[in-house]
């Protein structure tokens, strides 16, 4: 038995893959295993190749994904052609043996670049281009084939139940679920629990898919045994939840007192708002209104309006949407409006890679909009952090009366993981300085202190808000002295935040200050950096990781102190970008030059195996390593 399993399921986008992933993740969680899975999908909505990459462990939730995979489950021939390289020696391939005559060069959804690469590879290997020839070649090299005729299996299901036309593609999902469950020796009740969760309230579907998965699992077990069975979980998992990054941010916002969310749908942000819509309720205590607007300009403008009335208000978007929000961001800045923008980074520029990940928007968020005004930028490194940051973002926004940009990247947003149910008891709602019984003389922009007590529109005093510079009451002014006073009052809020937010919470050091090397990162780099450190530690290389969580106000002296302890030659910026913007930010804010970098900009996540190799290359003297693994 093993303590960990890495596996992958692939198939056409929108044809049951998501269902398989959710059922298996839930089933594994039900049994007490830690699971992390990343969904890599194409932007054409349906038909193109997509896959879900899993890592399951009996020792808690894995920190990151890695290659090779121990098991590849293929819904179609394209999956095998695309990922056969990813299989570990002795790994298992589950595929539809009725498709053995399928040729890679006749698969309409496959890109011409991949076809060209396969044409060269198969010519070198002496393969005829069919799935059957590739499967035999893999088998000769130790890959164990689990061939299942999907049509035959479905015929058996049809004989017993008939087939529900509305759910046709789901049946293929359950074939893969059954095959994985069989090879892993998963308990039938746990699989049923996963199916019940996915098809909640649809008894016939639960029955049919349970039957199908059990039938396949039994067949696979009979032929291959349970070679991928995991050890029993090391510790009782306690109460866990299975959630994506989008999910936990939505939940964090609800816990944090969100009352109004406006959005325009965009990948990979929209799923957060879709979940919030399920919690929408109006006219009750703790009302939540979720508004889908005509565009992102309307979304942020309505959020500003809601925040001025005293509602905790937020929007969620990604790069192209944030581009449209930039002017209104400045309006919120000059009017000191506490809004939260959850910014899910994806591959840019322009439409770029809509469904792929990136960390290339750091500078955009730090400097977006013209003029100078304070904003707070924080970035979450994992699911639990994202939940807490979603709460904290509101507190920071209201305490410092300024926009807060909460950065999440696509890898985190679309990663489904098991996690402990967050304990809300340590969380608090801090609404900042509020005006007590504001009367006729109330001045929203009172200059007598850095933070002027807030009153709310509709709750008493008349207030004025404009995009122009203004006096204490909000009326337009161009008086130079008043301009300077109001400007300074706004900017001092950032200095105040810098003094009040503990630097150790803004930049967190994992590992020893005496480590051989320090990795510097932010966002979802956290998981893979810590996982690589664990692997390298076993090989005698000690690695520390400095996690930048709040990037504005930047904890300059704290970070400088840590970096100088290592020296430029032993600090490596790790980032999903070309420029390693975090290294540039560090130079800007501390004067410290980070001389080495490990970057990736294919739109795919950084994997543990490639980061481990890259760190070794850096230790041998390379200054810049560019990663590219993953289909």
């Amino acid at each position, binding site marked *: 038995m093993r303590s960990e399993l890495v596996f992958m399921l692939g198939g056409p986008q929108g044809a049951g893959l998501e269902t398989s992933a959710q059922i298996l993740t839930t089933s594994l969680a039900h049994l007490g295993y830690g699971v992390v899975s990343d969904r890599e999908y194409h932007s054409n909505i349906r038909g193109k190749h997509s896959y879900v990459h899993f890592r399951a462990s009996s020792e808690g939730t894995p920190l990151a994904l890695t290659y090779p995979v121990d098991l590849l489950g293929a819904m179609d021939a394209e999956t095998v052609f695309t990922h056969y390289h990813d299989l570990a020696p002795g790994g298992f391939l589950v595929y539809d043996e009725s498709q053995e005559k399928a040729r890679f060069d006749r698969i*309409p959804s496959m890109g011409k670049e991949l076809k060209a690469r396969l044409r060269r590879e198969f010519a070198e290997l002496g393969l005829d281009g069919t799935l059957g020839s590739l499967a035999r070649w893999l088998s000769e090299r130790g890959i164990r084939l689990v061939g299942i005729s999907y049509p035959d299996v479905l015929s058996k299901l049809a004989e017993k139940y008939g087939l529900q036309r509305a759910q046709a593609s789901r049946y293929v999902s359950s074939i893969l679920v059954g095959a994985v469950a069989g090879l892993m020796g998963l308990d039938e009740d746990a699989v049923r629990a996963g199916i019940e969760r996915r098809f909640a309230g649809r008894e016939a579907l639960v029955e049919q898919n349970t039957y199908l998965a059990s039938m396949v699992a039994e067949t696979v077990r009979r032929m291959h045994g349970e070679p991928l069975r995991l050890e029993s979980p090391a510790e009782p998992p306690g109460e866990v939840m299975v959630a994506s990054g989008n999910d936990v941010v939505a939940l964090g916002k609800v816990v944090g007192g969100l009352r109004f969310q406006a959005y325009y749908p965009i990948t990979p942000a929209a799923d957060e708002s879709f979940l919030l819509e399920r919690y929408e309720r109006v006219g009750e205590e703790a009302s939540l209104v979720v508004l889908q607007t005509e565009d992102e300009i309307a979304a942020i403008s309505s959020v500003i309006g809601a925040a001025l009335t005293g509602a905790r208000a937020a929007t969620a978007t990604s790069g192209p949407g944030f581009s449209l929000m930039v002017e209104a961001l400045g309006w919120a800045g000059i009017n000191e409006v506490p809004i939260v923008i959850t910014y899910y980074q994806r591959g840019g520029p322009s439409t770029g890679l809509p469904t792929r990940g990136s960390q290339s928007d750091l500078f955009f968020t730090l400097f977006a909009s013209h003029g100078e005004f304070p904003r707070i930028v924080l970035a979450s490194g994992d699911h639990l952090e994202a939940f807490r940051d979603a709460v904290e973002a509101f507190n920071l926004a209201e305490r410092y009366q300024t926009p807060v940009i909460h950065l999440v990247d696509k890898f985190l947003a679309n990663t489904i993981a098991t996690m402990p149910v967050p304990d809300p008891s340590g969380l608090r709602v801090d609404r900042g300085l509020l005006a007590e019984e504001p009367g006729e003389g109330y001045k929203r922009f009172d200059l007598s202190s850095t933070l002027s007590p807030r009153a709310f529109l509709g709750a008493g005093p008349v207030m004025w808000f404009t995009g122009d510079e203004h006096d204490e009451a909000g009326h337009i002014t161009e008086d130079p002295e008043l301009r300077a006073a109001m400007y300074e009052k706004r900017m001092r809020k950032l200095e105040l935040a810098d003094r009040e937010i503990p630097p150790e919470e803004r930049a967190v050091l994992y590992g020893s200050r005496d480590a051989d090397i320090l990795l510097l990162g932010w966002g979802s780099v956290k998981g893979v950096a810590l996982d690589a450190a664990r692997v390298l530690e076993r090989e005698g290389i000690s690695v520390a990781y400095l996690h930048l969580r709040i990037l504005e106000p930047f904890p300059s002296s704290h970070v400088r102190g840590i970096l100088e302890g290592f020296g430029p030659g032993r600090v490596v910026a790790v980032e999903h970008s070309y420029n390693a913007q975090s290294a540039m930010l560090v130079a800007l804010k501390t004067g410290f030059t980070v001389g080495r970098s490990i970057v990736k900009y294919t739109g795919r996540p950084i994997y543990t195996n490639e980061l481990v190799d890259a760190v070794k290359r850096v230790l041998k003297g390379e200054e810049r390593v560019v990663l590219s693994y993953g289909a």
Partner: protein
Amino acid sequence: MGVSPDPGFCGNCTHYAPHYPYSFMGLCCKTGELHVYVEKPCPDYAPRTGREALKALSERGWAYCATCMEPIFTPGDMETHRGHLVVAEVFVDEAGFEDSPAAD
């Protein structure tokens, strides 16, 4: 993922609308039932002639190539799909949206 046009089976029947993207399944337009194409022929079996797709193209403006998984909009395009499984109807199930993350 084209369907093998076995004579007498669903895959060669004019009533069979192949599922997108798993064309080994399909909807029988005669009975409204979902089938797997390896099933035995039924009394409703009517061999495909190719004229159904041409008729659909001229009357409705599109036919469908299950071999290439793409629609056909002109008689000229029809020529490029000679020898493929070209049908008048394609079946897209309702579960797709639940399995499709937002993407734009």
